[in-house]
């Protein structure tokens, strides 16, 4: 066999192998999503979403868990978005190349890599025990907020960096102060990017279990929490309970599938919203 021919076969097989790798990855994702969609769809109904669990969680719905997840994610947003956006503005607009800036950037990169269970430990020691907030919505929300912070900072900084420098110069040349330039020209242009990043960060927080495990989540409540100092149910933890801790695991499997489907739909919905904001923004940018 000639060298050229061998090279051709080698290339053919090699490239097919790469395609196969991609197919395996896609197949896994599609199997996961379709299994949950297929078996979860049976459990899905308005009643499932809007009723409370009944008969030792063998019947009924997920309303308190869904409401708890929404509530705790709102606390996460209220904490992580202002702090994260402010930090990103400092880094991108004000910070000089100092030791402080380098320390800050290193902190952010490292915080992003810290395992979520460590945030759980930290939340217990700081909020639950240290600050005396107890096992509560607020403790969990703040813990998730800390976890989401590096994500928000990084995506906001990226959005700020993509605003052309000429906008800032134009504003300054007209006698704007630095803050006026940021407020009136930089931030409005960066808002779509910041929003996209924030939604993606929050969608991650909404699906997390480890950080809330010991900071506020509980396995059963008949109602959503009526105060931020109370414990709450959450969708991911509810799925964990239904699939591993329940006394009648096989019997509640359909409910577990339904819960998994709602959780994934919630995350995908947030991702799709973020995708469209980014898509429209890019289209706007390219039309300039």
């Amino acid at each position: 066999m000639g060298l050229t021919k061998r090279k051709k076969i080698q290339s053919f097989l090699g490239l097919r192998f790469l395609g196969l790798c991609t197919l395996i990855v896609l197949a896994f994702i599609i199997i996961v999503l379709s299994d949950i969609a297929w078996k979860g769809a049976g459990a899905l109904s308005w009643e499932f979403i809007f009723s409370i669990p009944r008969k030792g969680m063998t019947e009924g719905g997920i309303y308190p868990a869904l409401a708890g997840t929404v509530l705790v994610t709102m606390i996460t947003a209220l904490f992580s978005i202002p702090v994260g956006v402010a930090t990103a503005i400092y880094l991108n607009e004000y910070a000089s190349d100092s030791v402080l800036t380098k320390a800050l950037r290193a902190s952010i990169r490292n915080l992003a890599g810290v395992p979520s269970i460590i945030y759980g430990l930290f939340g217990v020691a700081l909020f639950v025990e240290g600050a005396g907030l107890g096992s509560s919505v607020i403790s969990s929300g703040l813990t998730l907020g800390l976890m989401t912070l590096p994500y928000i900072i990084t995506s906001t900084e990226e959005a700020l960096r993509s605003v052309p420098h000429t906008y800032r110069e134009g504003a300054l040349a007209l006698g704007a102060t630095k803050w006026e330039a940021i407020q009136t020209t930089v931030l409005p242009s960066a808002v779509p990017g910041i929003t996209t990043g924030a939604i993606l960060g929050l969608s991650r927080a909404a699906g997390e279990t480890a950080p809330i495990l010991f900071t506020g989540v509980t396995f059963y409540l008949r109602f959503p929490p009526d105060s931020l100092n109370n414990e709450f149910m959450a969708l991911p933890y509810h799925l964990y309970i239904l699939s591993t801790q329940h006394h009648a695991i096989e019997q509640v499997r359909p409910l577990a599938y339904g819960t998994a489907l709602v959780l994934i739909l919630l995350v995908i919905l947030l991702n799709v919203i973020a995708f469209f904001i980014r898509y429209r923004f890019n289209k706007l940018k390219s039309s300039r």
Partner: protein
Amino acid sequence: MMNKEIKLEVKDLHLHFGEKHVLKGIDLKIPKNSIVALIGPSGCGKSTLLRSMNRMHDLNATVKMSGDILLDGESILNRQADAVAVRRKVGMVFQRPNPFPKSIFNNVAYGLQINGIARNGALKTAVTDALKDCYLWDELGDNLNRSALEMSGGQQQRLCIARTIAIRPDVILMDEPCSALDPISTARIEELILKLKEKYTIVIVTHNMQQAMRVSDYTGFMYLGELVEFDRTEKVFRNPEQDLTRRYVEGTFG
């Protein structure tokens, strides 16, 4: 050579970008209501000099300056001088048109609003006047809510000039304002610059020597961070003192 009132005076200005010595002792007097062109090969420091006249270098932490720049006899470089107030009096038009991603109206209104110069009815009048001064009013008419980004490059640059004159600065700095534009747009902007001389003092950096000849009263030739020659434009182009200047304007180097 100049018995007119001096608007802007540069005194022994040195500027370093980190280790690099970019401006080496510039002395320059700019008379009121005149157009001064700064010419010279790329990297000679002409844009750097221009940007020091409205404290644009404040944005760059690696810049170190010594010497002084006086506006109406008062220093704009010392610590007491407020960079924001300086830029309010010394406007700038950039190499590439840089309108904000806002409506045409809001682009011109921007400086008026942040500086608290005009509101409501007065704002509308001021915007209209600025657009008329820049020949944009007739072209655009009542269509001021369009995005500024939809305009042509030449229109965008005239909008940037309109935005600058709307806040009635004393001095307008222009950094190669026509380098991104076609010849017809360039002609319109040159016409505009000549008209603006009645009200403003203008400093323009240009690569284009014909442009310097067409619009300016005075021309400064810079080379390697030094102001080699500064005189009336006819003199610089017809009968320069320095051999270096002659060779540059004749096009034998640079």
